[in-house]
């Protein structure tokens, strides 16, 4: 990669930002170029509502991918906690489609419907009731015994953290960037 030489400064910067190694960055860059057709940006990733970027450059791409980096074993507790939180924030934004800091029922339902869309026999109706059930559960987890008159409007990020408490995301939100070429047999 000819550009890599001149851009080594840039690569180093990206390294610092995202925590990828330069090898990985290079590989990802290759992939990025492949995806974008040698353009500097990938366009039209989603035809989402306004407010969402409809094109991303390589740095954005890297940043997104960096959320899926495995947690370093050398990190101390605090860093692990931090990275966990970041991962969760990323996830949270995936649910929170209008990015108002709240996963509303509507948004949750959309997610569930999408999840179940693979099975054509499950009606939307059931997806809804599942989402409703999940929301109810979330409400009871997050608010505990709610005050009367309280209205649970949606899952905030704090609630989201609470819901994820029992699940160790560290072991799950991982994609293997390391040894991307050499497909590893074992997980």
């Amino acid at each position, binding site marked *: 990669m000819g550009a890599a030489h001149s851009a080594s400064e840039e690569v180093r910067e990206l390294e610092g930002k995202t925590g990828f190694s330069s090898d990985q960055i290079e590989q990802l860059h290759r992939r990025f170029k492949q995806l974008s057709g040698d353009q500097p940006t990938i366009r039209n990733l989603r035809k989402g509502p306004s407010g969402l970027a409809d094109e991303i450059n390589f740095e954005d791409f890297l940043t997104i991918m960096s959320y899926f980096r495995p947690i370093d074993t050398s990190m101390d507790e605090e860093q692990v906690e931090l990275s966990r939180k970041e991962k969760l924030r990323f996830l949270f934004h995936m649910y929170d489609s209008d990015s108002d800091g709240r996963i509303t029922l509507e948004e949750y339902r959309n997610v569930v419907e999408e999840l179940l869309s693979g099975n054509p026999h499950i009606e939307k109706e059931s997806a809804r009731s599942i989402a409703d059930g999940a929301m*109810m559960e979330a409400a009871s987890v997050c608010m505990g015994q709610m*005050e*009367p008159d309280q209205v649970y409007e949606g899952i905030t990020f704090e609630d989201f953290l609470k819901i994820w408490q029992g699940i160790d995301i560290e072991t799950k939100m991982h994609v*293997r960037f390391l*040894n991307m070429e050499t497909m*590893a047999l074992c997980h």
Partner: protein
Amino acid sequence: MLRAALSLLALPLAGAAEEPTQKPESPGEPPPGLELFRWQWHEVEAPYLVALWILVASLAKIVFHLSRKVTSLVPESCLLILLGLVLGGIVLAVAKKAEYQLEPGTFFLFLLPPIVLDSGYFMPSRLFFDNLGAILTYAVVGTLWNAFTTGAALWGLQQAGLVAPRVQAGLLDFLLFGSLISAVDPVAVLAVFEEVHVNETLFIIVFGESLLNDAVTVVLYKVCNSFVEMGSANVQATDYLKGVASLFVVSLGGAAVGLVFAFLLALTTRFTKRVRIIEPLLVFLLAYAAYLTAEMASLSAILAVTMCGLGCKKYVEANISHKSRTTVKYTMKTLASCAETVIFMLLGISAVDSSKWAWDSGLVLGTLIFILFFRALGVVLQTWVLNQFRLVPLDKIDQVVMSYGGLRGAVAFALVILLDRTKVPAKDYFVATTIVVVFFTVIVQGLTIKPLVKWLKVKRSEHHKPTLNQELHEHTFDHILAAVEDVVGHHGYHYWRDRWEQFDKKYLSQLLMRRSAYRIRDQIWDVYYRLNIRDAISFVDQGGHVLSSTGLTLPSMPSRNSVAETSVTNLLRESGSGACLDLQVIDTVRSGRDREDAVMHHLLCGGLYKPRRRYKASCSRHFISEDAQERQDKEVFQQNMKRRLESFKSTKHNICFTKSKPRPRKTGRRKKDGVANAEATNGKPGDLGFQDTAAVILTVESEEEEEESDSSETEKEDDEGIIFVARATSEVLQEGKVSGNLEVCPSPRIIPPSPTCAEKELPWKSGQGDLAVYVSSETTKIVPVDMQTGWNQSISSLESLASPPCNQAPILTCLPPHPRGAEEPQAPLHLPSDPRPSFAFPPSLAKAGRSRSESSADLPQQQELQPLMGHKDHIHLSPGTATSHWCIQFNRGSRL
């Protein structure tokens, strides 16, 4: 107690031991005429003894578990081995020779399969495949490593002169011994690890290894055995190659046999709809057939059964009925635990037989040290390699537990017994060593592993309840990860898993699941369903008493709900909002005494069970019909449920869905029914203002169950329909329909008809009070999802109970000339004014009108809410679409 049991049991055993000597005589004697009493021990001897042994083992188990202290300290397997030793000693003392042994044939053909099937069938498959790489590495490489290093080291030991020269064994013999002693034993691992509760990853790795290494053990054992028999001089290079090849043949062949049988099993259960009763049997038979087939072809039988259980579970569980599932589960667990108990006990007994073994301290000590050392070394080395690839590395503590958890067990013992003494002259020494090794690992390591785990602070498995959110998130996760892998262009584990799931969904599931099951098959659904069931059960488990206690406070202090509702409706009315359907709103402010009466009535009504149905007595061998008791329980259960939920809803999760639940169903048949008319008019002989009120009766037909309803099984409900009495002015017939609909549960086949307000509040008014608490017995016959939807619906219908602002109109319309003359004037007062405002509230009408299946719960609550949150609703209330605004509202026991 134990002593008593033992001495009792020792008697028949002693008898059994003596019996064979008399055997020749008995056939010879002609029977002297008709015998009054004949002692036929021989005819029943074999099964009798088997049954007795199992009984002894089970009794021993009971005794062990009498003391919690003992079992928490000592693993059951240790206790059983010790018991076996004691029993063996007794038998030996009585019979003067060792009688009962762990016969390899019995062990491999009868005792092992249930355990392996159980573990394969209930193996957490996701976890297993997530860690498949590690498991395979440990199982294959680890076992090979252990076998060769242990064998070679022992040979070295012999060469060094530390083993007595009596032990005549060459390198091949030691390798053979190494191969059988090196395999971690699934039975022992399960027995110990189940009590230790280490984290699931660790467990699945050790346990998976113990299952999968069977193939390696079998191959190694067979290869070495044949080499020994051939004599080392005759072994040629091709034989080694054959040995390596046979490893693949045996393991892959075993797995293939298992998968083929899994496929057959799943396919068979697809067609058992009409013969539910044999479903569990099929599971066992085909799994056993897989085991025997693999054994016959000298493939790895353990692998076959494991794969069979692992592969078929998803489809079988979807196909077979709920009861069959429970049966399979319990039978499997019972068999496995039974087999395990017997194995350990027999191990203990077999050890007593001193004629079979010969002691050599050097060999025994050497073996013990070597297997511990090489296991640890192997684990460390392999983990180091694996950690290069694993995203979540196994840390040091995990490695310690893994090496320490390498327990040897009955498989090794059975294999060593199988050795041929003429070919392997050192067999007796090997037997002794194996026994010591097995005892050491099971007893010493089994005893100490728990404290060790505690001391090392190994991450334990957390038993948090599965939550719906978690399940949802994990699913999202899988998709995200697969997507990201795709984006990155690295087709890794997630990618292939995703592909496999697609394939499974598209072809396999369609082929192997019956259509009804396939349609509704989804993991998220399953979790949802299970959670609902769990909730329901826990409600009931907490006892219907909770309710009654709240119920008892009611008479003096009117129910929160009703107060809240009246107040809300009052509020609405007073604020002059047009948002009220008259039917719902006409409020009766009854005196406290009336309310108390009502409450008391409900209490009694709910608390007393009234058998209302007579069932056809039917008996068939092929269909289990629920007996009356069961039905009663069910009804009581449903009642309890209802009440529990009622209180639960109002106290804790007072969540109302403002959304509607459109659910396709047959539109309720609407008809003016003479009966209902009669009822209405009966109620009101005087007939006040009946000209502008017409009783609209809605009878809702049970929706046909599309599937699973065997007409032979389903009893016809005699009271299916719900008869509604709703008042409607003639001009608003449509509205009448709507409001009628409100009262109707969306799918009556499942839900108990929610009682109309009339029935609820003033039950003595309704002649058909029965309806209110009637729950269709069909509920329980329905396949999971039906139950599930039913459950949802009943929740929502219960919401209506929790907040019954429901139409009080019926009350008024069918008010008899009864003590409450005082109230009657009120009704007409409101009558004229109300119908019009109801039209001023088009959104809910439109909605309700369009989605006729609106659950009864939703609208009343909407009505409460909408005035309060009108602005929000306007956004959503495009006609025809159900509003999906979410809001959780907590009714305060209002003081208004």
